[in-house]
């Protein structure tokens, strides 16, 4: 065991007294506050600088004891994440459906007619037409052939064929489709024909009718159209004038490729006629 020399003893006492002075000074009135903040700032910069090197090492070592349990936690969190994403997608779809149903409800209130909401199950060609849509409602729900179909804003088409629980709708975009329409600005009546993905075209009955870009078209008044009157068809985007009269290109209100929830307006229409038997006397040449 060593012994302290006199100088070392004196130094120990002086340093201990100095430490006590520092404690008293710091407790008393914050005389060393500047020194504290200076050293803290210097070390803070050094810590930040060395963290890029020491940080990964520290985190690796800290993660080793829980590595096994972390894997199970990660799997559980991944599963929960996927479930929540599914719920979110479903909620988004349900919100959209709710908005579409609200539109149909508003139209029913405005027009004072019954609307049967339906979901589009398929869009494609059918029944000899290129642009048709299959809906999940039929005669059991009151749907009849010829009834108008809307999305709450504008015209979708008309019921072409109705079974008990499903129906086929001829879309307005079909090239064989013709819709009696009215120019809302000039009140001129004309015919809107489908042009597939190119939109619609409008030919006014009066060849001298002044159709302009921006004119809005709606289904014609009762008697001039088999559709429910007042349903928005589209907006004129271009007008060509020829010797036969004006022809307008129309941007449809409803896009035929983005149909989801639509409504069948339960007004008018008729049941599909059944098959009629062949008269044997006609085939047999009047026997």
């Amino acid at each position, binding site marked *: 065991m060593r012994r302290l020399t006199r100088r070392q003893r004196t130094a120990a006492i002086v340093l201990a007294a100095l430490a*006590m002075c520092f404690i008293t000074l710091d407790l008393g009135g914050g005389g060393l506050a500047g020194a504290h903040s200076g050293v803290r700032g210097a070390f803070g910069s050094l810590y930040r600088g060395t963290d890029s090197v020491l940080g990964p090492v520290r985190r690796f070592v800290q993660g080793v004891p829980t590595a096994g349990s972390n894997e199970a936690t990660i799997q559980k969190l991944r599963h929960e994440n996927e479930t929540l994403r599914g719920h979110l997608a479903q909620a988004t779809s349900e919100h959209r459906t709710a908005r579409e149903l609200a539109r149909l409800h508003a139209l029913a209130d405005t027009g004072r007619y019954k609307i049967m909401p339906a979901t589009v199950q398929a869009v494609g060609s059918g029944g000899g037409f290129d642009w048709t849509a299959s809906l999940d409602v039929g005669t059991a729900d009151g749907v009849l052939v010829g009834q108008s179909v809307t999305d709450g804003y504008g015209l979708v088409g008309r019921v072409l064929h109705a079974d008990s629980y499903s129906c086929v709708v001829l879309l307005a975009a079909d090239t064989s489709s013709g819709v009696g329409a009215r120019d809302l600005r000039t009140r001129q009546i004309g015919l809107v024909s489908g042009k597939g993905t190119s939109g619609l075209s409008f030919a006014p009955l009066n060849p001298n009718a002044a159709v302009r870009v921006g004119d809005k078209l709606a289904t014609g008044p009762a008697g001039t159209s088999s559709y429910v009157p007042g349903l928005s068809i589209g907006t004129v985007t271009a007008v060509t004038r020829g010797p036969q009269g004006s022809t307008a290109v129309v941007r449809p209100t409803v896009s035929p490729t983005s149909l989801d929830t639509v409504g069948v307006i339960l007004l008018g229409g008729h049941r599909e006629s059944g098959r009629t038997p062949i008269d044997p006397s006609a085939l047999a040449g009047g026997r």
Partner: protein
Amino acid sequence: MTRARVAAALCAILTALLLQGALIGPWTMPVPVSLPAVLVAAVALMDGPGSGMAFGFSIGLIADLGSDHPAGVLALSWLGVGLVCGLAADRNSVRRDAATAAVVCAVASVFTGLVLVAVHADGADLRHSVEWALPVGLGDALLALAVVPAVRAFLRSSSLRAPHPGFELSTGARRG
């Protein structure tokens, strides 16, 4: 005290405090294992009480100024570590020196807790300091097993070896 020793001491202080803050502290939390205290003990066990006290006071004061508690607490505590370990310096084996460093640092940790409670420092708890004394001792012993040989190797090098008082040869003129 040569310039090389002063520079080496400054570098050692800086390195020990950085490693304590960036690695040792987060790894050993909540056990307050202290690399700077073990370093002071290792230097004192090699170089004696004089170097130990000076080194312990300096590193303690810098650590105090970089913390929230009053300056002087760690300076006093590690001054004591340097003093006690310096008195026990006797060219022992690494394991014996590591054990000495561990015991002294654990006691110093309890002493520091006591002083912090006395000065009403935030978060100071004497019960925790006493409870953690044994884990601190074990942690410091493990650190000391690495630090003591390293410090010995450094302080034995020719540039850092403690200067001894030289013998002055009298070369006065002969009488007669």
